[in-house]
């Protein structure tokens, strides 16, 4: 059943994480930025689950569970912020949001 080692999962997790990073760097749509962050969180979760199987303990699963919970809270808050920003400025292009710049 478990013919596959953990390394392919780790590599896949790296690839997905870097794709998420690229999304954060390249896209300017705040919602897509958020989705890229979710992709990064997911790839980290995948690595955690792979390591949990490697070590034979379920602590990694518990950690993934917490990450999912925090991600849900983060998405709820973040999307509420985006809705408010859109209401104010009619745009969610993050290049338009630079009033915090010194």
């Amino acid at each position: 059943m478990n013919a596959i080692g953990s390394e392919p999962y780790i590599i896949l997790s790296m690839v997905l994480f870097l794709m998420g990073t690229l999304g954060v760097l390249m896209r300017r749509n705040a919602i897509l930025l958020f989705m890229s962050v979710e992709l990064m969180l997911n790839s980290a979760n995948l690595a955690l689950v792979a390591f949990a199987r490697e070590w034979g303990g379920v602590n990694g699963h518990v950690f993934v569970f917490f990450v999912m919970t925090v991600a849900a809270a983060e998405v709820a808050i973040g999307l509420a912020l985006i809705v408010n920003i859109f209401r104010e400025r009619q745009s969610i292009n993050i290049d338009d949001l630079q009033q915090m710049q010194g």
Partner: protein
Amino acid sequence: MEWLFLIVSFVAVLSAGMMLTRQNAVHSALFLIVNFGCVAFLYLMLDAPFLAMVQVTVYTGAIMVLFLFVIMLLGAETTTDQPRRMRWLGFTGTAIAIILLLVFAFPIASDMLSDEPFEAPDAQAQVRAVNAIPGGEGQIFTVMEMGFAMPLADSVRGNVLLDAADENYADLRLDALVYDAVGADAAAYTSLAAGDYTISAGVGDGSYVSAPVFSEALRLPPDSAHTLLFYQNAEGLVAISLQQDDVSAPEVGTMRLTFINAVADKEVALVDVGQYSARSSLCDNSSCGALIPHRVLIEGLPAGARATLELDAGDYTLAFVDQEQNILRTMTDFTAARGAIETRVLVREPGVPGSQPNYRAVSFSASGIPAFGSPEAVGQVLFIEYVLPVMLVGMLLLVALIGVIVLARPDALAQAERRRVNRRRRVSRPLVSVLARQTGADVLSGDYAAKLPRPRPEDGDAR
């Protein structure tokens, strides 16, 4: 399995790439859902069924619906996505990402290709020892486990081990489990990594162990449980039996009762005497009468044998009877709890020779060992070891809930803005008049007036 993993990971990477490159945010969200589904599938392949379920419900369910909802609510499907500043970020980011991928992933990949095939992780198996020898001096057993992982010469293992000198195997003792000699002791399971072992037992405690009286090669599959039982056989000699326990969860509404007969010279059956509990409770151990009507649960077992049955939850009066239908021991008000796993060992207590023997039904219970990654396994760790973080995360979710409600109020930001402007006005107006008085210049007219901060017109209207 390899091709399955390749297909799923290819779809995952492909959908992630599509998500990054689509201009329409709804399409991106849909591709991200595909990606999350692939990750859930990979969780299943990684023996994490519970997390796969949570992934589907929380991520592809709740979170992505929230995303789609917000995108469509805002009508932001095709908002401007053109970078206005830091255009170099995309190219630099791509370059750095590829370099990082090469630096980190390449060694792993090359290592993986050269490495030997993956071995299953160290899953746990359980072993326990039960001493059912009726008392006596020196009846302490030490159970040794000698795995193949130990540097153990072939000549020492197996039959030769049985007549090895004391000092030879004293060094081999790895994880000694010492049990009390008096009566039968309820023993807890000890976790060992699943694999092949040679289980040996010698008489004596941790400081001195005799030559092994028992040695058996044993394969411990993952998530299994074995019981090592020391008992007295019909000839009055110490016998040892090693049997596998069923520790999977019992059927719904039942308990699993295992009966082990450790009485040397009797065949003992387990019977249910039902409604006659009041009468049979009168039977004490020394004077038991003839057997009343009963229902046989377990037929007569020879010494050292065991039998298992699933008992419907409820209260019972059980009795152990020998082949002459004499009650050796009753268990009044035996409560069969749902889902419990219990083992009863019937032993004869050491008594004065010639007197009526006493029998004891020693009980020890086991909890089922949940499979790796199952909801039970995760739940046990989550709510035993990580109770405080669970509480904190619950608080976090509550705070997030309140925060979203506050943020989503339609006039939340407008009110804050108004308050901010009012505060500024309260300071700046008197300041202007002070300046005018001190300098004598009419700061509110002419060139000065244009430079002064002015409240926004809509704020003035709102007042």
